[in-house]
């Protein structure tokens, strides 16, 4: 299954990535080959198998509602490219 250029551009846009024409061609091929790989699953007969979201049967462990320590501010912001007023600072997204 071959992805169109338009589909690749759409996916890139959802991820807020801007791709060059060359990159679009490159990812068009790479993403298509990933999809082809997964296509193999279609060959399996799953008629008698219940829809499954996980293969391990560990139940969901629940946590008691008890507050614990958060990160010191310096540690939290340590790797941030930019900060201001103890907050992460990022380029404007919406106009």
């Amino acid at each position: 299954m071959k992805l169109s250029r338009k589909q690749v551009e759409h996916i890139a846009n959802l991820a807020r990535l801007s791709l060059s024409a060359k990159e679009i061609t490159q990812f068009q091929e790479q993403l298509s080959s990933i999809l082809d790989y997964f296509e193999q699953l279609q060959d399996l007969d799953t008629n008698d198998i219940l829809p499954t979201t996980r293969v391990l049967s560990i139940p969901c462990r629940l946590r008691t509602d008890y507050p614990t320590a958060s990160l010191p501010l310096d540690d939290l912001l340590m790797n941030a490219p930019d900060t201001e007023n103890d907050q992460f600072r990022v380029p404007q997204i919406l106009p």
Partner: protein
Amino acid sequence: MKPNFETIIGLEVHAELETRSKMFCGCPVVDSTEAKPNIAVCPVCAGMPGSLPVVNQQAVEYALKVALALECQINNTSIFARKNYFYPDLPKGYQISQYESPLAHHGHLKIRTQSGEKNIRIRRVHMEEDTGKLTHIPPNNGKPGYSLIDLNRAGVPLLEIVSEPDIRSAEEARSYAVTLRTLLRYLGVNSGDMQKGVIRIEPNVSIRPIGSSEFYTRTEIKNLNSFRALERAVAYEIQRQQNLFRQGKTIVQQTMGWDESHQKTFPQRTKEEEEDYRYFPEPDIPPLVIEDEWIERIRAALPELPAAKYKRFIKTYRLSSDDADLLISAQSISNYFESTVSTCPDIPPRTVANWITGELFGLINQRNITFEDIKILPRELSALLSLLHHGEINTNTAKAVLTEMFETGNDPKTIVSKSGLNQISNIAQIAKIIHDVIAANPKELETYLNGKETVSQWFFGQVMRGTGGKANPKIVKAELNRQLLELKRKQ
């Protein structure tokens, strides 16, 4: 003019659950409108690699309470899912939510409308996590704009309640939202403070020509921070869509914002298609299994819900619909009413209701405080109403005493005896006052005796003024008439 369109509205309500810690980590839940930024953030809610989410049991319990109060069917196994989108308020690049197999589905909520009770079906109730808070700094002097991110709110448990498109007008949308908020407050899971954004109401609105059964393009309205804004925004949007439709223009599927200062909706962004979120089961959280036993335990512990209380108040206390509605709007108020009624059995509950919804609410609104802040205990209110009921004070005095009780927290008997506000009901005392007033005004008496009987009104006013309004007006009127007629006869 006959309306040519029918309005179709569905409501999505997001309500934060008032747990102590966040949905998937132990960070404390803080008031994100007041706390210093980023003081309650850890690797899990900051979306750092290698961190793992663990579900908060209390959040599930609260969610179940709401789902059961909405008479939903609970899924014994529900699945958390990743909703993928890129926006700076979402540190992981996805929100943990529920998609297929939500916590609960197929519920309903009865609302009251002008034409009676109406059933609004609930499509689904699911759990998710809140996002961080962004502050947008606009471009300035050629410097580009930017955004600041505070993650205190990121990961706070959030309940999404989605209605079916059963709502047909702006008024019904408001009624649904008010009813749902009251329910959440009764269940003790959400304060209902829209200004603080702990509950967020997002209507989606479309119109269709009457007689059509298909659904047309809908728009969603965001950032509504009051019920009034909700009602106005929906009404505006209905009108906008009708105008477009009549002009033959297309209605675009998009998210609208509400501009409070101009009272109009404006396009915010074109909405992503559902498939763009690329939902898939959250690999870090196993399916959530909820045993029937847990469900039944929560169901059994549900408090009396607002709808049942409303009906009981009308039936038991013979209240008007409006009074019942006001009194059940919060448990603190309905409890206050019932405590007061139980301590003054000889006073009609309707009178108690009127004093609470009239005088007491008036004082609360004037001072801009909440009902929980009032200093007057229910038994003190009933003591005041007893003084009034037994004629020891008149209505105006009772109102003045209530105001002083409200300010000082003193009990009514002390206030009345200290300030000599007791109503004068002693006939001998009143007779003496009237006698003196008549004697002091011979000219007016003469006018009266000459046939101008309206002067008796003037005498009445003088007596009441002379006693500072404390004389029992009924007794004054009777005694004054008696004395004047007596003088007329003697003429």
